């Protein structure tokens, strides 16, 4: 499947042109999630979509330098770990798990919560980007291979 990559110049140039735009907009969606519809998942999915678009247009090998597959898998773990770590930091300051109100980002409790939300949204976005790219890579690159029978 997809072994013969069509080498269409228009597709390649368009993908390379559009992908950064998608990523910029994704950053807006991610960081503006406090004030408008958006947040970690939505932004993360958009970044993942831009990377997958590049993979589709330019081929799997050529776009490994955008994100290596094994790094993507580990990034998914790291993103989820960031979330859990922010939650665990609250223990350090005597709060319940995930209670950002006790973490001294600032003096005001509500402001602390706002910063805590931003931090975990970043973790969520990282996990989302990396996990989706990892799923895509595994599905695509194994589909054409004949080896690796299980029995």
């Amino acid at each position, binding site marked *: 499947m997809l072994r013969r990559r069509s080498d269409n110049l228009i597709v390649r140039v368009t993908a390379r042109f559009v992908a950064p735009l998608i990523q910029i907009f994704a950053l807006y969606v991610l960081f503006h999630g406090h004030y408008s519809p958006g947040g970690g998942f939505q932004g993360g999915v958009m970044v993942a979509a831009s990377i997958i678009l590049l993979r589709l247009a330019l081929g799997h090998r050529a776009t490994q330098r955008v994100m290596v597959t094994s790094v993507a898998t580990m990034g998914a*773990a790291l993103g989820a770990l960031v979330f859990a770590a922010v939650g665990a930091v609250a*223990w*350090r300051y005597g709060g319940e798990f995930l209670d*950002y109100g006790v973490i001294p980002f600032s003096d005001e409790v509500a402001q602390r919560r706002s910063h805590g939300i931003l931090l975990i949204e970043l973790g969520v976005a990282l996990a989302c980007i990396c996990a989706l790219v990892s799923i895509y890579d595994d599905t695509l690159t194994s589909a054409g291979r004949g080896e690796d029978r299980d*029995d």
Partner: protein
Amino acid sequence: MRFDLLPHAPVIVPLAFLVGAMLAVLGTLFRPRWAQPLAVAVSAFATLVAAGGLVHVLAEGTIRYQLAGWRPPLGIELVMDPLSAFLTLLMAGVGLLVLIHSRPIVPRELPGRETAFYAASLLLLGGLCGLVLTGDLFNLYVFIEIVSLSSYALLGIGSKRAPFSAFRYLVMGTTAGSLYLLGLACIYMRTGTLNMADFAAIVPEVADQVPVQIGVVLLLTGLALKSALFPLHGWLPDAYTDGGSTATALIAPIGTKAALYAMLRVTYFLLGPALVADGALVADVIAYLGAAGILWGSFLAMSQRELKRMLAYSSVAQVGYIALGIGLASGYGFIGAVLHIVNHACMKACLFLVSGNLRQVVHHSYLPNIDSSVRRKMPWSMAAFSVAAVSMIGLPPTAGFFSKWYLALGTVEQGRWVLLASLLISTLLNAVYFVRVFEQIYLRPAREGAGGRPASGEAPLSMVVPTVVFAVLLLVLGVGNALLVDHLLLPMLGGGAS
């Protein structure tokens, strides 16, 4: 700074498994050899914390852990009462023993995939612990999905047929999840809450409204489908037979039981037995489906020639026992159901581990080819098998007897002779299919050429020890079940149900 671990036990146990899975991927992606020790270490830690949590709960009462510091109807709470603490310990402990047992199997069955396998196993265990502990109906759904996703993947590797069986399981499991969510939407529409305790308090006010009733039915249907209750059990035997040894040993004993535990919570603690008895139709349906599942599963198990497939069908029957206990909606039914969840986890884990030992040593688990040479080769495994089988039949010194005893008491108390008859008949059927195996292991002479080097073929120590531990646990649970009932189950009945 001093950090007191035990008051945080409800969140630490599931979190340890989930973080363990993340660390496994981060740390051992290129060193698959380290995945198993890491997984065992994480489960050992979680088991210890769960045990500590149980002691803490018994000494100082239920822990209601308010996540993010928000009081319950607003935030999510985790509830560690004696029952859920004990079941968490059960999940973590069974997981620990099965993961120890998997050491020689996984590199042989899945070379090069150890990291992913152990990460998925840890996610499964974390999901199970969270599912048992959570006090929030939507959080329950999230954990159900974590458990289901990792089960699909774990069962999807194995024999050639495994991916197809796992896909059917996935379709069924997703339907179940969707039904659960739909039922929850109907309930949320009329109550506005997702917290279990809050909902239980609101229920008497809204119980006569049609959307709530239909929502509860949808909720229970989803959980029944997840737990393979009788007419909805079609996906189970194939999925369990085709999966790998360790994956099955991990999922069969505790995977479906978690959904049954959720069902138990919904019926006994959310609706309350009185309410179930008022709308007795729901309870009756669950009880009679359970009885039908007992008979159907036992009959089909009798006609199987492959050990794993026989155990898979007998799982359908065991789910039936627990559902029968839930459907009785009485004190005895509750005790019987919970005891059977515990006992069945130990018995099934023991039996599946023995089947894994057989595959490791004699490379098959095909019943007609088993004879006394196997017993001479693997005395410890076969002894454990015998104990577990006796417990499955339900003979007195072992744990299996007592759960059936309480279930039978419950049926007699309510004068439901049909249910009692199904219990007794299935005991006979169980006896038939296990005694057949006994006859082969102990009496059938070894075939020519098979008895070359007898006493040298027992499975490696890391496999035998967990198997034997489960067998011993069965005896301990059998002897000590009065303690369990007095200290864990009766307080639960007094507090939440009646």
